[in-house]
């Protein structure tokens, strides 16, 4: 295969070489289970590395180390946060506020809770995918126990006004959870300044390994454990710690803290050049979501009128250019993107959304080959399409 151009960094990222190197000794040398640290120097050594990783994550989020809990990934973190808060605070109320543009890892647990008798209220988003904090305020009642609103959207990259929403939650004594899977490691996150009580993150979205994530839970939060067992992670998350993954996550966090600003500026430049070229070369293309600072620097989501995205992705892929199909988890489903629907993309265009997400391993040299191939593929598919009547 020729050199591949990978444009699906919001779905998953390759592991940074330094992260993998940090992990390697933990497979076959430092493999002991940290649970037995009191009687085993091997375990104690692993435990020390795990605590170092915890500190790296705490530093990245401006949290305290005791507030970081390791999980198997972003989806588990979301499940643990939302169900854990709901179950533990049921006596206080049964209303939860969220949005329609959340990741499925938030939406499906909310559905489960709805079946258990909780009421889920959805804040509307505008055509750029933004939640207005005042709208959140309007939905609050004395029965509200949790607000869960994502930090940034995985499909259209809109960055929400988390700090203000958190402030509203705090003022009303309501727990505030944010799914920050797309932002941690890419955008500065400060759980103190942003008034966040719970935050989900996932290692493989910022050059760490798959199979590991973390949940930030503010001290003194009333939360029920999600996974029962040996009582690891101070009783909140049982199960043998995935020390290899955790060490990788810690290293990814450390690298992100140091290099994030530089990388994101570069990424933004590549993204902007890419979209300018696409708009120049291909007619009838428009951007979904916001322009400017309130959009993730690596995210590009646009509609190419008259064609469906799936054959376009396959064609591009045949040419070595890897593009994601909306959110990774629903790529296999026939439903159109719930996010594009929520921001009121016209029905005719719902299946024509293309998401390209740039990562730190992309380069400016890749822009031209992307645009040339895209232009050619779009022309071919438009020639084929009954929806594209131009050029008759």
């Amino acid at each position, binding site marked *: 295969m020729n050199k591949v151009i990978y444009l699906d960094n919001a779905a998953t990222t390759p592991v940074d070489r330094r992260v993998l190197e940090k992990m390697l000794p933990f497979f076959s040398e430092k493999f002991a289970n940290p649970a037995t640290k009191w009687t085993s120097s091997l375990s104690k050594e692993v435990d020390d590395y795990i605590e170092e990783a915890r500190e790296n994550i705490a530093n990245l989020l401006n949290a305290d180390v005791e507030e970081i809990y390791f999980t198997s990934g972003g989806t588990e973190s979301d499940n643990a946060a939302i169900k854990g808060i709901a179950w533990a605070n049921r006596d206080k109320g049964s209303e939860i506020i969220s949005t329609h543009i959340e990741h499925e890892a938030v939406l499906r647990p909310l559905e489960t809770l709805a079946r258990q008798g909780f009421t889920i209220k959805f804040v509307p988003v505008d055509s750029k995918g933004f939640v207005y904090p005042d709208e959140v305020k309007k939905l609050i009642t004395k029965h509200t126990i949790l607000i869960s609103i994502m930090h940034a959207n995985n499909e259209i990259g809109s960055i929400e006004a988390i700090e203000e929403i958190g402030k509203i939650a705090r003022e009303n004594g309501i727990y505030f959870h944010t799914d920050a899977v797309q932002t941690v490691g890419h955008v500065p996150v400060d759980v103190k300044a942003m008034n966040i009580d719970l935050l989900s993150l996932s290692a493989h979205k910022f050059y760490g390994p798959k199979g590991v994530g973390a949940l930030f839970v503010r001290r003194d939060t009333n939360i029920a454990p999600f996974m029962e067992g040996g009582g690891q992670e101070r009783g909140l998350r049982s199960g043998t710690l995935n020390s290899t993954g955790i060490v990788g996550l810690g290293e990814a966090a450390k690298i992100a803290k140091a290099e994030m600003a530089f990388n994101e500026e570069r990424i933004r430049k590549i993204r902007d050049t890419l979209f300018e070229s696409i708009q120049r070369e291909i007619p009838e293309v428009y951007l979904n979501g916001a322009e400017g600072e309130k959009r993730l620097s690596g995210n590009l989501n646009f509609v190419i009128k008259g064609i469906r995205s799936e054959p376009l992705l396959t064609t591009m892929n045949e040419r070595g250019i890897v593009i994601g199909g909306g959110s990774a988890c629903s790529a296999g489903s026939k439903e159109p993107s719930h996010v594009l629907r929520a921001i009121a993309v016209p029905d005719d265009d719902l*299946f024509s959304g293309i998401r390209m997400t740039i990562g730190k391993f992309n380069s400016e040299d890749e822009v031209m080959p992307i645009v040339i191939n895209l232009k050619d593929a779009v022309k071919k598919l438009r020639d*084929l399409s009954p929806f594209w009547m131009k050029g008759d």
Partner: protein
Amino acid sequence: MYPDIVMEHFMHPRNVGKIKNPTSVGEFENEARAKAVFYVVVEDGVVTDIKYQVAGCPFAIAVCSLISEYAKTKRVEELKVFSMDDVKRFFEIPEDKEDCIKLSINAFLNAIIPLT
């Protein structure tokens, strides 16, 4: 994973386009807003020309192409019973892709059946 024949026809679809004065036109659009349109020219009960337009997944596109090759010079009587089983002779159909293939078959049959 795409079967080789699907990939070949998807990347190089045959008989693409519209026919100005067709004998018959058949359309089909599914719930997921994928759409296929077949144009056929029939002389003495035999398909002499066939073209199509399609906005669907790679399977739908490849099957339109395969049908267009298959149908040319065949009798309408023979083609009106074209079904999923005929497509299965070309390649193994993944379970979750049946809808995409039905799109192409239905559009084709919508062009053929009125002629019988």
